[in-house]
């Protein structure tokens, strides 16, 4: 059992909060993905969990033990460093075997596990090479092999596949996920790659400026982002955000984009009502917007600016008011630059956000 509980973790560099009051629980055997822009504190958080660099305040528990002040070796974990940090004076074999030697695993078992890890990462033919004579991607795989060979209860990975080509990454992703599930490891996995995050994570924690913005299952993070940042950061293209005016007449609440009115679903009406006469932000994903070539009920007329054919879909760029909106359509949908089309926003796919705080309005 190795549940990781982080309570109010704070890590400062001078006056700068690299990790700002983070609380996060990673369940036993869970695969948690940590996602966020460069410099948001992912590595710092991971290092704190590993025991490299003491927290300024807060607490970290692993498997029910308070490890906040324990040295790294007593935390029974393994880590893939963003910079790999493989030992240049050791062969690949000795690198991968390092954690096992330190834990005094017997030689035959060590050999078996090194072999297994090496095969998984396709470096079994390089076991007696030195790292200086390997490519960046190969070194990275040595670093991953070194960490998984230990078979510790907790595995921390800092962008472990970032340097591999697309095909190899696809393959590693699947195999790594399968192996870690088999070994019942609790994993925290840092990545920049959204596809990696969506496909591997049991849950995704989205981080920004040292703060965790949202923790949820991949689909929930994608469909119901907690705020504008998450919606904009996850998904390609990012979620569209359009400003709308709230009006209430005869007890019915509407949100207007220019002359066009959207009737929000029942559940959100109480949350929108206080903003009568003010504006809110409407968030909707490119692929959720319905497109028509003819005037249709509840559809607004817009002009197409750009059409980008992407193979499986066409991406249209449209201007609504002052906002640029991206709309994904079927490749056969007839849209041409400067042509008119009609858009409809399916109301159950719309996110409603506060204009100032940019956080999603909760259905009351």
């Amino acid at each position, binding site marked *: 059992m190795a549940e990781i509980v982080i309570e109010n973790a704070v890590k400062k560099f001078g006056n700068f909060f690299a990790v700002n009051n983070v609380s996060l629980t990673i369940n036993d055997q869970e695969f948690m993905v940590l996602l966020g822009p460069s410099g948001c504190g992912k590595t710092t958080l991971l290092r704190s969990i590993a025991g490299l660099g003491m927290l300024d305040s807060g607490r970290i528990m692993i498997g029910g033990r308070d490890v906040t002040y324990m040295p*790294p070796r007593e935390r029974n974990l*393994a880590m893939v460093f963003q910079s790999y*940090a493989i030992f240049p004076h050791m062969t690949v074999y000795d690198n991968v075997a*390092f*954690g096992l030697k*330190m834990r005094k695993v017997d030689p035959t078992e060590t050999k078996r596990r090194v072999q297994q890890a090496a095969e998984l990462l396709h470096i079994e033919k390089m076991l007696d090479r030195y790292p200086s004579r390997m490519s960046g991607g190969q070194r990275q795989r040595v670093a991953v092999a070194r960490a998984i060979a230990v078979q510790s209860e907790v595995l921390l990975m800092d962008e472990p596949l970032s340097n591999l080509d697309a095909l190899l990454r696809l393959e590693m992703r699947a195999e790594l996920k399968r192996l870690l599930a088999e070994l019942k490891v609790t994993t925290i996995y840092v990545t920049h790659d959204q596809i990696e995050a969506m496909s591997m994570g049991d849950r995704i924690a989205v981080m920004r400026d040292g703060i965790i913005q949202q923790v949820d299952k991949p689909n929930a993070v994608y469909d119901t982002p907690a705020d504008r940042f998450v919606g904009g950061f996850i998904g390609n293209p990012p979620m569209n955000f359009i400003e709308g005016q709230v009006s209430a007449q005869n007890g019915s609440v509407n949100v207007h984009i220019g002359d066009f009115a959207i009737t929000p679903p029942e559940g959100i009406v109480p949350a929108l009502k206080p903003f009568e006469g003010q504006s809110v932000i409407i968030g909707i994903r490119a692929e959720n917007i319905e497109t028509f070539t003819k005037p249709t009920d509840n559809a607004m007329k817009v002009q197409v600016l750009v059409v980008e054919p992407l193979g499986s879909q066409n991406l249209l760029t449209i201007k609504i008011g002052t906002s640029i909106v991206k709309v994904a359509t079927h490749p056969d949908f007839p849209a041409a630059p400067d042509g008119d089309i009609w858009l409809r926003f399916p109301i159950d796919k719309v996110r409603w956000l506060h204009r100032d705080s940019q956080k999603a309005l909760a259905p009351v």
Partner: protein
Amino acid sequence: MTVEAKSVPVPVIVASEEMQAVRRRALRRQRLNRGMIYVVAIALAIWIILPIYLIGSMALSSPAGVRTYPKAIFPFTDISFDTMSFFLQSEGILPGVINSIVVALITLVLSTLIAAPAGYAISRYIFPGRDFYRLAILGVRAFPVIVLAVPLAVLFIRLGLFDQVHSVALMHTALTLPTTVLVIGSVFASIPYELEEAAMVHGATPLQAFRRVIVPLVLPGIAASAIFTFVMSWNEVFAASILTLENRTLPAQVLNALNKSSPEFQFAGGFFMLIPSLIFIFFIRRYLFNMWGQVTK
């Protein structure tokens, strides 16, 4: 542009006359540049090699050969070790060699023992006054050796340490420490701290991480710095002359005998003292390049 039609579907591009001329000019410029670099390098090399060559050729000819004029164009035709053996058998030379070696060895050990932890601390720990400390280390070198040596001589006389190899070794340690600390510091600094951290995360104690990861990586660099220390001490003459009378080190002894000795003694002495430096440079040249951020294999 003439493009030949061929049955093989390999596109053959034949450059126009004009393009070929441009290419020729570019190539010529490149060759010229490279040529200039060689000329400068050769000039510099001659500047350094010529004196060494002259000293060497003199030291390895017979005493009579040293004195003849004009010289043969190829002086090595009559290689003879008479001059060298004459030098080595001169009074005070052999004890001088032994003193020099003892002093250099003590200096090497002391200097490395002190500099290794100091270099580690400078490169790894951020402590108050680190930058000042780093500068202060160089402070010793800011004073001319003479300025340091005379008061030290007085002090050593008072302490009864005067005219002993140990006192020279102490002085040399003080003189070599700044360089040694900074060199060893940069050796440690060139090793990412994350390697130590990676070792500790994977189950090593700080001591194990140091012994299994850091030591093997810094050892070559420290060895190079130790040899460097040895040669600095071997070549040092001012402090050694001031701090000793009877127990002279080799350079002090040679310097002392210089104005009352024959040319062949001087050549042989110069050559003999040169040898360790040459051997040293030969062995550590890779590390020297390394220190300048350029690894040449």
